[in-house]
């Protein structure tokens, strides 16, 4: 019962009221601590394979893009092989892609930088429009070739153009899109692997973060020592699947 309520509450409040009659009432708690078996709410693991939001063409562009933001080198696999595009795809297909839980009532007005996000455009819409415009801009700049077919140096050149605003996108602020995809890529790279990025905990191994350990009491007094524990995630350990 709690689970139903909580999940509903995380959703749009308008939906809440419209669907009101189908939803469990307020919970009255009395006489002791309530406990409902099976009421825990673990995350749902992303299963790689296929695309839930991106078109195949968008996915190819994003995979090529994240692989330049996080290139394959002697430190770790790149953004593509570590699952960053899968992470972004699943986020955009899910609640974050539609800004679920955000205050989305109008009027929408431009404000100061200090007033923060004031756009009704969701990340899912933002990616769709920006990726199309980016493809067009790349073809115009690089002899009709789309981003995925560019050399690494040309790809980096295009990405730098977004970062510094010199590569203009039709109807989209290129620097804003750059910030969005950079943040999403790095977040996916560093988040728990259950969300599709950071496959095999490659980023955690790279930096030395042991992940979801819960007890460091043996280590609090051992100052300036490298902790040899291999990383562990919410759902598993990289060695378990090998």
């Amino acid at each position, binding site marked *: 019962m709690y689970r139903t309520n909580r999940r509903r509450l995380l959703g749009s409040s308008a939906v809440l*009221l419209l669907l009101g009659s189908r*939803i469990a009432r307020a919970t009255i708690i009395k006489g002791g601590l309530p406990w409902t078996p099976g009421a*825990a709410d673990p995350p749902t693991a992303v299963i790689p394979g296929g695309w839930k939001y991106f078109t195949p063409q968008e996915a190819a562009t994003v995979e090529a893009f994240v692989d330049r933001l996080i290139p394959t080198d002697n430190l770790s696999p790149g953004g593509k092989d570590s699952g960053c595009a899968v992470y972004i795809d699943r986020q955009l297909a899910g609640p974050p892609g539609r800004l679920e839980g*955000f205050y989305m009532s109008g009027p929408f007005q431009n404000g100061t930088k200090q*007033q923060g996000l004031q756009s009704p455009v969701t990340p899912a819409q933002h990616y769709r429009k920006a990726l199309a415009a980016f493809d067009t801009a790349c073809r115009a700049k690089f002899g009709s070739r789309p981003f995925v077919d560019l050399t690494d140096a040309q790809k980096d050149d295009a990405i730098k153009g977004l970062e510094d605003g010199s590569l203009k996108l039709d109807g989209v602020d290129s620097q804003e899109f750059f910030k969005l995809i950079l943040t999403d890529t790095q977040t996916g790279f560093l*988040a728990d692997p259950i969300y599709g990025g950071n496959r095999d905990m490659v980023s955690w191994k790279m930096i030395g973060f042991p992940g979801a350990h819960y*007890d460091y009491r043996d280590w609090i007094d051992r100052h300036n020592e490298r902790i040899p524990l291999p990383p562990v995630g919410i759902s598993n350990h990289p060695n378990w699947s090998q």
Partner: protein
Amino acid sequence: MPKRLPPKDVAIIGLGWTASILANELTNAGLDVVAVERGPWRNTATDFSISYMQDELRYRIQHELFLRPAQMSVTFRNNASQTALPVRNWGAFMLGNGVGGAGVHWNAETWRFLPSDFVTKSHLTQRYGANFLPADMTVQDWGVTYDDLEPHYDEFEYLCGTSGQAGNLKGAIQNGGNPFEGARSRPYPTPPMKQGYGHTLFADAAKQLGYKPFPQPSGNLSQAYTNPLGVSLGQCTFCGFCEWFGCANYSKASPQTTILPVLLRKSNFEARTQCEVTRINVDSTGKRATGITYVDTSGEEFEQPADLVLLCAFQVFNVQLLLISGIGTPYDPQTGNGQIGRNFTHQTVSAALGFFDKDKYNFNPFVSAGSIGMCIDEFNGDNFDHGPLGFVGGGYIGQVQTNGRPIQITALPPDTPTWGSKWKQALKDNYLSTINCGAACHGSFYAYRDTYLDLDPTYKDRFGRPLMRMTIDLHDNEIKMSAFLTDKYAEILQKMGAKQVVKQPRKGPYDVTAYQTSHLCGGAIMGDNPRNSAVNRYLQSWDVPNLFVIGASAFPQNAGYNPTGTVGALAFWTAAAIRSQYLKSPGPLVHA
């Protein structure tokens, strides 16, 4: 028409720290109490599960445990000439939700304010003269003193099992504690936490510079503890998932781990969750609350009559419910008249990044806890001479880094590329050897005439009620103070051996997108007369004597400490006043 429910002795709005404390005290007094909470029931086993709580994306980045702005938000502007716009996603502060409130997701830094903090106006005026304060600064005395609150700080700390080292025991200064603190009647209930490498290095450097470092008072417990209610907490395991997270280990003090197991067994207590209070009802005289009205998740409206109403929501929602219910006079920044919404404040936090040689320093930043850390208090409150400095206020300074969660904590030296192989190399080279604690300088935020709360004229919640409008900016006094504290902290980082220190003093304009603690204060402040305050020294409404408004909304200005220790002390102070005075003779406890 709302469904009218059978009357209760006491109706409490919210079920966080203050509500839990008041409910427990008043049920002990034999009263029939109901608490009405907007969010869901939450408990450790199911909601802060040890099998998946260590999830930075879900809880820190995507704010799973927090109130969703879709349900209720606020609007914000820097000054009255701007149009306030809604906060569409939380940034500068995070507002809790559900049973336990902010007591679930806090770091559990459990401080007392300085004795001089409770008499800010008279103390500063006496020491520096009336003209020393900026003309538009509206600080005032609290109407209670440190000595009034000391027994109640003690009650809150013993409820929580707070881990710390006393610095002043009945007037005798203690080695290793904070020598600037007010006298405490007995030691902390549990010894201080163990400290990590970076925290210890900070303390060593501070000592070399002549300061007196001490362990931060912590509600993450150094050892197992059973509180006076018989509820037990476990030892903190330094997991590094504390603030923004619920504790899966029963080792962070919260209503769940200290009060609720006892409270919920009582036959004279009932909690109703997923119920949003829409207004406090008053009778035709406007002088007496008759109860509250709330809406459940099905949209059905209920009226809960009660003899006594306790407003125990988060600060900003306390103020909002007063204004929506037409209780008290809204503050007018033009005339300075009116009490509801005035003296709205926050916290002025700042930091510096310390980059260390990776071959010599390994801080293991993930071995940490919410209120771990070593601090100094030389530059807090009025512990130092402000005369030559041209500002008032201050804050504690500390190495209080709570975690090594990689999405949030990753700080790289300036000029590092933002992507590509060089970015990766910098991430690898700096992750274990950087000191990055966002609130190293925990500065005060004093009150000003032009910083206030009122009802927004445009933006509404899902019931059509106006959102709270925040008009807030940083003033020169706080900007100067922040620069001063940041310099002092940076000196200590240098002394620790940092190869590069990057100062990040707080600067204006106030930015609602940049996190700077969730310590919103004021708006329904306490004081010694109804012309300067919304509630009296017992947090009783001057206008409606059977209504008490409890929480940081009562702070006339915010001091250089985390507020929850003082919020807890005020809750016990109010409970004592209701039990010993109000119940014997219901009516105003202070005649003005």
